[in-house]
């Protein structure tokens, strides 16, 4: 009986939990990744320096004026499109393209595990790493904000979403970071697709940066054609770009500006599903011993 049970359990190859565990260890074996894990406090300090210099030029009544409560959001808005994207590109380039193209992956495939399952495990592990980074960044920027930034009784939120005291502000920040976590998952799916089709790690990075540049460029070009559209249509087209959702869309979602909350969620989900499915398809078709 027990033997039978053992066999049915094992019929699908290596259990997914074991794959996750193995990938998690493999990830942390890299010196690059361990160094990257230290990035959160550094990034928080860099943004604090930048935001303090910006504060000197802004009126304290503006939502862009950084206070102890709004510091985590303001600090994330710029880092999400630069540093976090960069880290994810490094992860995708190293764990997918590099391992696959250099043949290291074959060692892991001595046991019966399909490429699709390995890649799913890699995606989950990289996402877990990014979410830990995000959480660490939240804690660091909240602490830095509390120490160095003014803490008024209430401060305005973005897009006229009302006034917030410090405690409410932190809740708002948490919501913002939760949405950011979703966008990171979608963007990581995009990068994993790029890493799957990239012939070498430099190509992966070039394509990834190209994707980010295009995601920035197309909405910028769209602003020239603003008079041609209704506001509703315009903002929807504008936030079709994942980068713009990251940059300005998250605050708009929290304020539910022009009904963008559902739309942006749809965009994020759409990117995730589309690129996730395309990645799966690539790995399904591909021979392990190319």
């Amino acid at each position, binding site marked *: 009986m027990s033997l039978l049970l053992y066999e049915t359990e094992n019929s699908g190859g290596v259990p997914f939990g074991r794959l996750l565990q193995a990938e998690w260890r493999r990830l942390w074996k890299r*010196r*690059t990744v361990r160094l990257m894990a230290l990035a959160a406090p550094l990034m928080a300090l*860099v943004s604090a*320096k*930048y935001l303090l210099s910006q504060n000197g030029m802004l009126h304290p009544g503006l939502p862009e004026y950084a206070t102890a409560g709004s510091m985590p959001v303001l600090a994330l808005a710029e880092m999400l499109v*630069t540093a976090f994207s*960069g880290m994810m*590109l*490094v992860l995708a*380039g*190293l764990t997918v393209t*590099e391992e696959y193209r*250099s043949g290291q992956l074959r060692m892991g495939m001595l046991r019966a595990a399909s490429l699709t399952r390995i890649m799913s495990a890699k995606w989950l592990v990289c996402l877990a790493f990014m979410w830990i980074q995000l959480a660490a960044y939240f804690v660091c920027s909240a602490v830095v904000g509390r120490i160095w930034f003014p803490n008024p009784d209430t401060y305005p939120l973005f897009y006229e979403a009302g006034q917030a005291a410090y405690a409410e502000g932190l809740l708002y920040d948490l919501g913002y970071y939760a949405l950011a976590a979703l966008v990171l998952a979608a963007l990581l799916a995009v990068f994993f697709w790029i890493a799957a089709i990239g*012939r*070498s*790690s*430099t*190509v*992966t*990075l*070039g394509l990834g*940066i*190209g994707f980010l*540049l295009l995601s920035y*460029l197309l909405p910028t*070009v769209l602003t*020239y054609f603003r008079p041609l559209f209704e506001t509703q249509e315009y903002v929807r087209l504008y936030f079709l770009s994942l980068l713009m959702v990251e940059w300005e869309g998250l605050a708009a979602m929290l304020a539910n500006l022009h009904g963008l909350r559902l739309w942006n969620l749809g965009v994020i989900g759409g990117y995730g599903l589309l690129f996730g499915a395309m990645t799966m398809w690539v790995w399904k078709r591909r021979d392990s011993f190319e």
Partner: protein
Amino acid sequence: MNNKQTVGIGNLIRSEAQRVFKRGRTWAVIAVYLIFVPLECLFLTMMNTSFYDPDHSVPLNSLNTAPFLLRELSILMNFVVIPMLAADSFNGDVSSGALRLALIRPVSRVKMFLAKWAVLGAAVGAMTLFTWAAGTVFGRIFMPAAAETTLMGAGTVGGLGAIGFGLGFYGMAFCIFLALIGVGGIVSRLAPNPVLAYIGMLAVIVGGIYVSDGMAFLLSVSDSIFHFLGHTGGSDAYLGWILCALLAGCVIMGAWSWGRREWMQ
């Protein structure tokens, strides 16, 4: 007796050029850049306006169009083309071990570094020259005709003056690209794999503005050159000197660090 024991720089450049242009992705990235040049031209015809910097717009005509092609194309150049080529050439060869085969002959490592720089410089230089030529020809044919035009830094100029200004502008841009390739050589020396070399170069470009406003020219190539040529003062006034210092620094640092490289690690 004149049979020297080391390999000449000419042969090194030739062999490096063969390696660089043997890679499919070199051609791919060049092709992508060449596709974006006419797209940029199309974009400029649609807009009919471009910018010296975010605060100063300028109407385009048949003479002044050429420099403005670089406003968007330099971003593609600095963020995709040069980092890809440099990471592959300076780091990919080494970390994959392919370069060892080339180094079986007694090759000076410093010359190797300089040969790589020269080959990438020639490739990027050809692309820059092509952009200038495309911009000039395109402006003459498709933009509203003008007998003379006013350019920031050159005053009012005629046809020949505009061509001269364009050449000078693209010459400066080429020097910036060369400096970035040199930076790539040094970053690649430190990074253990091409991925980190690529990201390291981006970190230098973006991180430069956190160090000093004088380093912003790697990010905003055309704005900085206009400021420099137009003598508008500010942080770009010393662009010429900063560039010279950066180029010299890259040559010295690169030659020193590549000369000390241990190949059998």
